């Protein structure tokens, strides 16, 4: 174990080994993060035939590109607004009020976090597509206008993204509200402020830094997302920056320089916002948020509590009902706009599981990539977190910084970087390059989770191991590892689920035979009857839910065995 040596500084030999170790880590980080990004820069500058300036000018003044940029901004704003208003109000209702059934709503509100937004887009087609959408079918006779709602629009894309990214903001807000000292609110009430006034004047401003930074994260994610805009934008010819990058790569002949240039733009935009967010958070003091353990008494909403209930129920239904409709569609041999028992069939499922090669490959590829990838990612992040937090390795802060960079790289950009960076290596056209890209893309998520976990355990616990004669590695593996196991399982689930539904990076890296689940779904939606896509979407969702439920049990079980921490 080279790591053992890294633990404690000592004589000359150890110094050399520590240098070797940090050199090794830097090399790996540079190859997997810096190099692909530099390759994009290289492609966009050096590879265009007419020279960089001319090419950049022609791309940037292209009307299609301009439209795509505007569309991207519109979609991101709308999605952030919807996700923000839903996330914040639901979190406030659950954490701070006496809304009925808040305990049941809490996990339900997090549900979309574990589902694929592509499946969400698929199921919203059943409800709101212009021709076959149920809403249009039912409401057109009443209103006469046609079509009444159209999911194949900027509004439709923003709406679906908003629904599926609301849990991110919900989670941030909920944590911030729960860690806030309730007496601050109670003081406002004592001063004569009403419930809503207190919420807007005290509660929300105090948790504003956390909430705003989650807004920023959702905005940035939606600006770079590929799956939903591709699925819902194609029928209505709505393009975003990510979909035109994809098109530049898939049209014949492949236009690398344009794709690279647009990727660079997207990356710079995202990175700027992330830098802004970090700056913004740094200047905010969280002094009001104390770690007091007592649960504040919920605010009494009075007659409004059923209104709150209605709002939360509406959110759950907006997620659940389209999915129910999708299930119904998947069980019919042809969809006529209503469920008919006579048309019931499992044929669609049979087709997905036994006939469609792409679908079957998608399942097996994704299962391998996601389970192996999550395992490797958890292991790598654990080691990196230990090196950053538990050693005095020179340059360990820099390791942490470089590892956090991929947060600012949209998936499709990272995918392109990996493609141009590794196209001439044996990695290309294998599932391993996809797995590699996933691990790199979610390194920041995994590492920040792991660092938080490591920091949550008092350092005296492993130091007392050292004092008992254990070496650094023994203290880490015999004391820290068992203590962190439940948290590591949670991180594993999070990464597994994220990998299963990943679209943006995969779409750049898949080839015939290495399709992932989500890629196979998008491909099948393009050329197969809707029933088959529906069945496929249902199966993917069941897989995700099954994984989450199973592993939650595993994590709970091991946490119980280990005793209270």
């Amino acid at each position: 174990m080279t790591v053992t040596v890294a633990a404690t500084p000592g004589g000359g030999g150890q110094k050399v080994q520590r240098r070797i170790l940090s050199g090794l880590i830097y090399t790996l980080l540079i190859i997997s993060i810096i190099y692909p990004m530099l390759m994009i820069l290289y492609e966009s500058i050096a590879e265009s035939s007419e020279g960089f300036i001319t090419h950049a000018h022609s791309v940037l003044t292209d009307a299609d590109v301009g439209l795509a940029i505007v569309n991207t901004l519109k979609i991101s704003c709308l999605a952030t607004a919807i996700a923000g208003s839903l996330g914040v109000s639901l979190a406030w209702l659950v954490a701070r009020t006496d809304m009925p059934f808040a305990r049941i709503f809490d996990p339900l509100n997090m549900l979309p976090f574990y589902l694929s937004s592509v499946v969400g887009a698929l199921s919203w087609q059943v409800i709101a597509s212009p021709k076959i959408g149920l809403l249009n079918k039912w409401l057109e006779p009443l209103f006469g206008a046609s079509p009444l709602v159209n999911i194949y629009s900027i509004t439709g894309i923003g709406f679906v993204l908003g629904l599926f990214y609301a849990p991110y903001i919900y989670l941030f807000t909920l944590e911030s509200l729960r860690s806030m000292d309730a007496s601050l609110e109670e003081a406002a009430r004592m001063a004569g402020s009403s419930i809503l006034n207190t919420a807007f004047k005290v509660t929300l401003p105090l948790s504003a830094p956390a909430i705003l930074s989650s807004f920023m994260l959702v905005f940035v994610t939606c600006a770079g997302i590929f799956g939903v805009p591709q699925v819902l934008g194609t029928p209505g010819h709505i393009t975003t920056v990510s979909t035109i990058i994809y098109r530049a790569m898939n049209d014949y002949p492949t236009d690398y320089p344009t794709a690279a240039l647009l990727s660079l733009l997207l990356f710079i935009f995202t990175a700027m916002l992330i830098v802004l967010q970090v700056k913004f958070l740094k200047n905010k003091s969280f002094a009001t948020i104390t770690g007091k353990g007592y649960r504040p008494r919920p605010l009494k909403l009075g007659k409004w509590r059923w209104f709150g209930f209605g709002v939360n129920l509406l959110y759950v239904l907006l997620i659940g009902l389209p999915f129910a409709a999708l299930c119904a569609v998947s069980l019919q041999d042809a969809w006529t706009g209503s469920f008919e028992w006579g048309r019931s069939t499992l044929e669609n499922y049979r087709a997905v599981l036994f006939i469609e090669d792409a679908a079957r490959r998608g399942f097996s590829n994704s299962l391998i990539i996601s389970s192996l990838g999550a395992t490797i990612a958890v292991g790598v992040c654990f080691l990196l977190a230990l090196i950053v937090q538990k050693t005095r390795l020179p340059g360990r802060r820099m390791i942490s910084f470089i590892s956090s960079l991929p947060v600012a790289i949209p998936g499709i950009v990272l995918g392109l970087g990996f493609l141009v960076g590794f196209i001439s290596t044996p990695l290309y056209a294998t599932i391993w390059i996809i797995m590699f890209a996933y691990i790199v893309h979610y390194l920041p998520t995994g590492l920040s989770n792991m660092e938080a976990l490591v920091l949550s355990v008092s350092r005296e616990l492993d130091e007392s191991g050292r004092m008992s004669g254990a070496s650094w590695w023994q203290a880490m593996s015999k004391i820290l590892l068992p203590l962190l196991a439940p948290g590591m399982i949670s991180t594993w689930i999070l990464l597994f689920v994220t990998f299963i539904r990943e679209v943006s990076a995969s779409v750049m890296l898949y080839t015939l035979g290495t399709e992932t689940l989500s890629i196979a779904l998008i491909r099948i939606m393009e050329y197969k009857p809707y029933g088959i896509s529906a069945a496929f979407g249902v199966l993917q969702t069941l897989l995700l839910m099954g994984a989450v439920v199973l592993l939650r049990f595993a994590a709970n079980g091991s946490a119980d065995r280990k005793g209270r921490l």
Partner: protein
Amino acid sequence: MSERQQTSANAVEVRNLTKAFGSVTVINSVSFNVKKGKTVTLLGPSGCGKTTTLRCIAGLEEPTSGVIHIGDRLVFDGQAQFELEPEKRNVGMVFQSYAIWPHMTVGENVRFPLDIKKLPQKERRDKVAEILKSVGLGDYVNRPASQLSGGQQQRVALARALVFEPSVVLFDEPLSNLDANLRDHMRHELQELQERIGFTAIYVTHDQREALSLSDEVIVMNGGRIDQVGPPEEIFSYPRSVFTARFLGCSNIFMGTASSVSGNGVVSVCVAPDTHFSGKHHGDQPATGAELAIAIRSNKIRLSAQDDFSDPNLQRFPAVVESRVFFGTYIEYGLCVGSLKLKADCEVGVHYDLGQSIFAAMSQSDCLVVKA
């Protein structure tokens, strides 16, 4: 190295230990020795660097410079860039939070150091049973460690630190998380255990009672430096500085200048234009005109309504009663002596009214002359 040879009876030797976090120096050239089998206490206010000193000895913190020996072994030398890993120093440590591993039983916690050493199974079992018995947890071997009370956790931590017979045991405020009664109880147990097993200990605390009752030697620390070193009685009776005097409970401290110095250690200190205290000094003889301070414990001041003290050698001052606070076993009077404020403890039953003019008196030997 030559100065070390005659001191091989030392279990720990710290020379010019300095530790800086970034640009902040939190320990500044600290040196001390701990003799084998003795208990030395680092006493000082919060933030003075006690824990950091202890962690440097343990090897959990890398000192900026200095030399540390444990027994005959060099464990740290700043100049030679030598540092021995903590696990190789054969030092036991009881942490302030006890650091009991919640995922193991009591027995597994205590056995851990022996598991690491890979002792024969039977020896491990016997040693664990023996040490648990001596800390009074004989029946707790199979208890999950997460279900222990504070006092029990403290005992487990102690057992774990002692079970592998380290050459030194380090204690970082081990009693500070316990309630007052349990603290007294555990202090006694600790004392007994040390008498029985005879380990060398370095003990960190900010509680003077603990320091005085537990140790053979007390090191008073202030702002990363050693202020005074000595046996408990000496530290308590003859503080040398204002800091140590105040930290060890002298509530009346007056700055002044030496107006006369006599050969027998008596110094007269002028603390206000017309107020002089004469007191005893210990240590180097001060020069006339030197900046000094007078420290007087509040329970050494005698009060009387008339100037009728039996001892003619007392220094006496007219005083006016300003405040009166009841503390159960005594009453604390706040007095005005000229422009000075004085605190005096008085037995319950003697009563003076606020505003009453009385007399305060104290003997020469109770006025301690300390460095300003």
